[in-house]
């Protein structure tokens, strides 16, 4: 007989879930529905509010500014996310293998940037990048070069990538490290006795054992990248070439609050949310299936 896992008090169970359910309805289902409904109409001076069906979406998917921003975020994520997770993984494997006091200090320090609000982190790096406040811009002059301009079009994405990497690498390292702590020692004890090196064990045993955690960290990083807003928003004070449509989310914000076009803004938000949601959910389902089969 299958062991009983649930108790039969349906009313009590539903009541426990009810408060959370109401919050879900009020601040997730209704806003999403409202955004969708808004996105189906447009407002113009001549005609007032008018039902336009998927007109806003046709406009979004042919809007060069939005597509540019979307492409920029994709390229950014394709470079920054693997780089960050790679560093985090190496760090986590190091922490798992080396247990000196130095390693403990490293673990604590690596986690500190996560405690810094993203907007303040971006502000700090903005100061550090600037010629008047920071130490880095004038570094090349020591070797006879021209001072570096971290806000120039060439370096801007790299500068932004560094801010995100600084803020999130330690957090991801801790996540992967705790996953590594859950890997049973028996899995590689024999290999150790056979004389396998720590690097071999890391690559052949440990990394495959935590690939679920790596995948999860990757999903959350991609979701975060697609919503890229705070860092470019703050950096635009230092770098005026960050335009109103630099990232899709920045574009949605500016459509609403700079141009008062809430209908189009809602369409962008909804389309962006939908793309991210579908991609992430498909990824989760595919990794789950592979594991259970």
């Amino acid at each position, binding site marked *: 007989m299958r062991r009983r*896992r649930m108790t039969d008090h*349906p009313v009590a*169970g539903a009541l426990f879930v009810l408060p959370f359910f109401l919050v879900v309805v009020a601040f997730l289902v209704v806003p999403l529905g409202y955004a969708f409904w808004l996105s189906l109409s447009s407002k113009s001076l001549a005609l007032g509010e008018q039902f336009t069906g998927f007109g806003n979406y046709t406009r979004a998917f042919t809007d060069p500014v939005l597509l540019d921003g979307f492409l920029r975020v994709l390229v950014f994520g394709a470079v920054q996310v693997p780089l960050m997770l790679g560093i985090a993984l190496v760090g986590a494997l190091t922490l798992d293998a080396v247990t000196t006091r130095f390693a403990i200090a490293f673990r604590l320090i690596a*986690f500190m940037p996560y405690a810094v609000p993203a907007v303040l982190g971006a*502000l700090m790096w903005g100061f550090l990048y600037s010629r008047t406040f*920071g130490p880095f811009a004038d570094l090349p002059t020591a070797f006879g070069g021209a001072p570096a301009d971290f806000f120039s079009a060439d370096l801007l994405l790299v500068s932004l990538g560094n801010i995100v990497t600084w803020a999130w690498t330690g957090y991801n390292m801790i996540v992967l490290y705790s*996953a590594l702590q859950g890997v049973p020692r028996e899995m590689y004890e024999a290999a150790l006795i056979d004389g396998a090196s720590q690097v071999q064990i890391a690559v052949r045993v440990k990394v495959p054992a935590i690939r679920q955690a790596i995948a999860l960290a990757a999903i959350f990083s991609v979701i975060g990248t697609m919503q890229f807003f705070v860092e470019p928003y703050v950096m635009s004070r230092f770098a005026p070439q960050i335009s109103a449509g630099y990232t899709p989310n920045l574009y949605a914000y500016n459509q609403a609050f700079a141009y008062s076009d809430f209908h189009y803004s809602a369409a962008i*938000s909804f389309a962006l*949310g939908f793309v991210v949601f579908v991609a992430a959910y498909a990824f989760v389902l595919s990794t789950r299936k592979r594991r259970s089969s």
Partner: protein
Amino acid sequence: MTRPATVRTRVPHLLMAAGMLYFLVPLLWIVIAATKNQADLLSSPAMWFGDEFSLFDNLVRLFREDGGVYGDWLLNTAVYSGGSAVGATVLASLAGYGLARFSFWGKRFFETALLGMIMVPATALVLPTYLILSNVGIVNTMWAVILPSLLSPFGTYLVRVYVAESIPVELLDAARLDQASELRIFWQVVVPNIRPVFVTVFLFTLVATWNNYFLPLVMLSDADLFPLTVGLTTWFNTAQQEAGTRVLFDLVVTGALLAIVPLVIAFVLLQRFWRSGAAAGALR
């Protein structure tokens, strides 16, 4: 034996030292910068102290500028993040327990949907929520920040996982035989047993609200309702626009340092709770 061991650990220790330097430089910079007045900030070497030690002077001016609005921002941040974290933790605990240990109509569907809710990008919700709340008439109030922050699908998910692993049904049945009410069972049997995940969810939502910028930026327009994140950036904008006429850069830096210090300390002390939460989330 010792010799190869030291050679083998030298490379990892060098890597870790480089990492520490990278993570620490911006934090060291802001600690040093907060001790400078505006003139030193603009002229002295970035990673070393200026001519005068102005930290205390900066702190005094920080709390006087704009009629002491920084104190309001500090208090607002504490209220928003504390209120949201308490509320979200209570809701997530109740719901996580309900999902883990009861069966009722629509539960399977809701559990599947829960996984999807974690994937919904938070910023996609902010603009429509703003429009709805402005129709209800509560934008530009504390509630406009706290109420949307109560939503924590990830917290509910963590509690559900934890309860399923740590609270046997037999324990609940025994309590029911003693005629305890369901609410009392939750309070006296479940809550003491799920304390670690309770703390984890509390910390996650606390930090999420403390760090949140987009939501309060959209919802609030009165300066005395701002949290630190929004307040300091408005000062920074003023400092840039009125460069020279108003001395503000030093206050932005000192204010940012003061906003960061308590969280960094709390993080270092409470790191194990993040690890347990991260592990629970990664296990499934």
